């Protein structure tokens, strides 16, 4: 009893997350300190106490139930004995990691009628020094006291009434909190922001659609860049040595009607490399110029240093919603290779410089254009995982097409700005698969099929396991090398989240949000 008390006391006194700890996340394999586990966004656990020998004996340790009915998409942070989760729409709860009992709540009152395309969800917090940071659905950034959950400061990032919203976890770097924005379905203008962590004062803003006089503005006809989308709604990655932030950008707006925004529509559907001190663009790579299929590139840029054709290189791995797996040079954005990892028909191929050759038949039209993948993508916001040990990149894949009919759309602030109606393909049952790709070539090593296209991320561990979940509620573990099925449990709710792992009291745990429960697994 006494040691338990001391451990908790320690955690309160220790609610300190200096930048150096985030930088050296690898030194704390038992904790989960940032959205993707480390700045390189590997979403990988170096723990091996749970492994192929004992995974079959995993058991529920505790559950925590939220009150909301929205999808529970949180990625927990765990350190110093406390787990920090968000529950939808924009609440934060700190849990005692030993028992699952709440230590504090932050509950936010959300105004009526915040327009959001895809649910009032939230994917987690960031920690820096003695504060916890959360983005809210009404587009504020809030700093909370890590010990009590009391608000330290609260700033408006954008006006929700015009269609802006925030769902992603912020990213904490040295002295700054980096936040992305959502709302491209409402014709907002995308940006990436940095705020001073102490004061909440905005340090810089990078506009994802360039204004007049800026390079790239001529990739938009007329003033279409003003409501051109290019939102930044999934947490990016960071290379501290190059001091570059890497962030995926979303679809141009309107999503499906390209006639009102002729041109490549920079920097929509791209990955941008932005200087962390100034917000200045260092380079960009556009996956889908002039997109008319809602191919948001809001996936996670995974940073890996590896030998590329005999030379050590700083790489970026990117499993795109558009069904292609890309390898880029992250120092300059040079295209190295791309390979499809799912069924697609929107591109006839990718040219040697990485530019797709579009298939005009997939442009929405009056009679219905058949498109693979559909607008939910082959991949989406849910995290992939990279295991250096296995040399594999794991990604959950959605095999689903859609039929798109063009409709008239007109920009009005706060209203949907899409330009299509969608129909599912009546003769086909979509499915999903967890695919393990050779990290450097994108070649398929193995796959594990699931019934329904998933909305769950993948966690690989040093125990040579991969964990993931299904829309029917199964959480499962596979052999990371062979894909062999090892363990499952029916959790009873749809799994719309990313599993993580941490160590508590000398034991490894797996945590995942399912239905309206946060469930923690371990070995007795």
């Amino acid at each position, binding site marked *: 009893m006494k040691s338990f008390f001391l451990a908790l006391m320690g955690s309160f006194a220790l609610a300190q997350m200096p930048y150096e700890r985030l930088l050296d996340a690898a030194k704390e394999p038992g904790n989960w300190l940032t959205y993707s586990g480390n700045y390189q966004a590997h979403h990988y656990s170096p723990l091996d106490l749970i492994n192929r020998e004992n995974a079959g004996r995993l058991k529920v340790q505790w559950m925590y139930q939220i009150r*909301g*009915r*929205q999808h529970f998409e949180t990625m927990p942070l765990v350190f110093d004995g406390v787990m920090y989760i968000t529950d*939808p729409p924009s609440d934060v709860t700190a849990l005692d990691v030993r028992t699952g009992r709440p230590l504090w709540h932050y509950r936010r009152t959300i105004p*009526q*009628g*915040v*327009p*959001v*395309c*895809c*649910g*009032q969800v939230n994917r987690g917090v960031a920690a820096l020094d003695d504060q916890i940071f959360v983005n809210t659905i009404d587009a504020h950034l809030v700093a909370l006291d890590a010990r009590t959950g009391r608000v330290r400061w609260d700033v408006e990032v954008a006006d929700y009434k015009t269609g802006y919203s925030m769902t992603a976890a912020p990213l904490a770097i040295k002295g700054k909190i980096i936040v992305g924005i959502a709302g491209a379905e409402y014709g907002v203008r995308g940006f990436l922001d940095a705020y001073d962590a102490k004061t909440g004062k905005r340090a810089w803003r990078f506009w994802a659609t360039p204004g007049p006089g800026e390079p790239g503005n001529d990739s938009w006809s007329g003033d279409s860049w003003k409501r051109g989308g290019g939102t930044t709604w999934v947490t990016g990655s960071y290379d501290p040595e190059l001091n570059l932030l890497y962030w995926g950008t979303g679809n141009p707006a309107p999503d499906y009607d390209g006639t009102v925004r002729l041109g490549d529509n920079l920097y929509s559907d791209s990955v941008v490399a932005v200087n962390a001190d100034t917000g200045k663009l260092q380079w960009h790579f556009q996956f889908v110029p002039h997109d008319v299929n809602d191919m948001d590139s809001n996936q996670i840029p995974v940073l890996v240093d590896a030998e590329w054709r005999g030379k050590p290189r700083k790489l970026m791995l990117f499993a795109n919603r558009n069904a292609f797996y890309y390898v880029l040079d992250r120092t300059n954005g040079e295209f190295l290779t791309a390979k499809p990892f799912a069924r697609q028909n929107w591109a006839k191929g990718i040219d040697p410089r990485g530019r797709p050759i579009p298939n005009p038949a997939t442009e929405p039209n*009056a*009679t*219905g254009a058949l498109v693979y993948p559909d607008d939910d993508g082959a991949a989406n916001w849910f995290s992939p995982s990279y295991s250096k040990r296995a040399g594999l990149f794991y990604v959950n894949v959605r095999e689903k097409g859609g*039929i798109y*009919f*063009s*409709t*008239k*759309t*007109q920009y009005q602030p*706060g*209203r*949907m700005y*899409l330009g*299509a*109606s*969608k*129909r*599912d393909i*009546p*003769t*086909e*049952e979509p499915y999903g698969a967890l695919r393990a790709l050779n990290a450097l070539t994108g070649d398929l090593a193995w796959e594990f*099929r*699931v*019934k*329904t296209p998933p909305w769950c991320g993948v966690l690989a561990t040093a125990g040579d396991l991969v964990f993931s979940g*299904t829309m*029917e*509620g*199964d959480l*499962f573990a596979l052999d990371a090398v062979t894909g062999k099925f090892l363990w*499952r449990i*029916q959790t009873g709710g749809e799994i719309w989240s990313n599993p993580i792992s941490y160590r508590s009291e000398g034991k490894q745990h797996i945590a995942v949000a399912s239905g309206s429960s946060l469930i923690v697994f371990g070995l007795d």
Partner: protein
Amino acid sequence: MYLRVLGSVWLTAIAAAQPPAATSAGESLYLSQCSFCHGKDGEGGRGATLARPALRHAPDDAALRLVIRRGIAGTAMPGTSLGEDELEQVSNHVRSLGRRPLPPLPGDPKRGEQIYRTKGGCARCHTISGRGGSFGPDLTEVGAARSAAYLRASVVEPGADVPRGFVQIRAVTKKGDRITGARVNEDTFSVQVRDASGAVHSLWKAELSEMHAELGKSPMPPYRGVFSGSELDDLVAYLAGLRGTL
């Protein structure tokens, strides 16, 4: 549930290559603000199926307008900034998607009911107002959601266009048992199947040696040639009048 009638509407639309011209202000609002999630004809997709006679969240028109204005808290159904007139227009359009007016039909519904119960043997597989078998879909409200042409085709040629939610499973267990029936549910590891007797089988996929899921295949026997033309008219008149409590 996906409505098969809409599948055929889509096919017809392709054949005719008609550009979608909104015929009312309500339809044009619906197409731009709602159809991406609910489908052009309310068939559903990311959003709920609206082409049905009764809506769970909108028992009356005032509730419908409120749902559209406020959205449904805790779900992906967003609120809108539509004005009062626009709300009225779009909610009228939503109602028109699911409630088909009863057209004048040639047959006699009373005789149709007789045929349903006797010669047709339909009640063996279908339930109306709580009576009948559970192998096929409940038909209590079928007349409100389906056109007469659709109902006629359902009887004559059940395989022509089967609703998306209906999947026939053929499975063989490792012990050699064969199970055929309608899929009640399925996940990555298990499947639940209702056979023609109405019994539900719970099966682990790991314990099966074979499993086939057949979309677009109907176990309902085709009645082509079974009924005379006037018998068919009577049957369709009966089915079209099935509107539950609406």
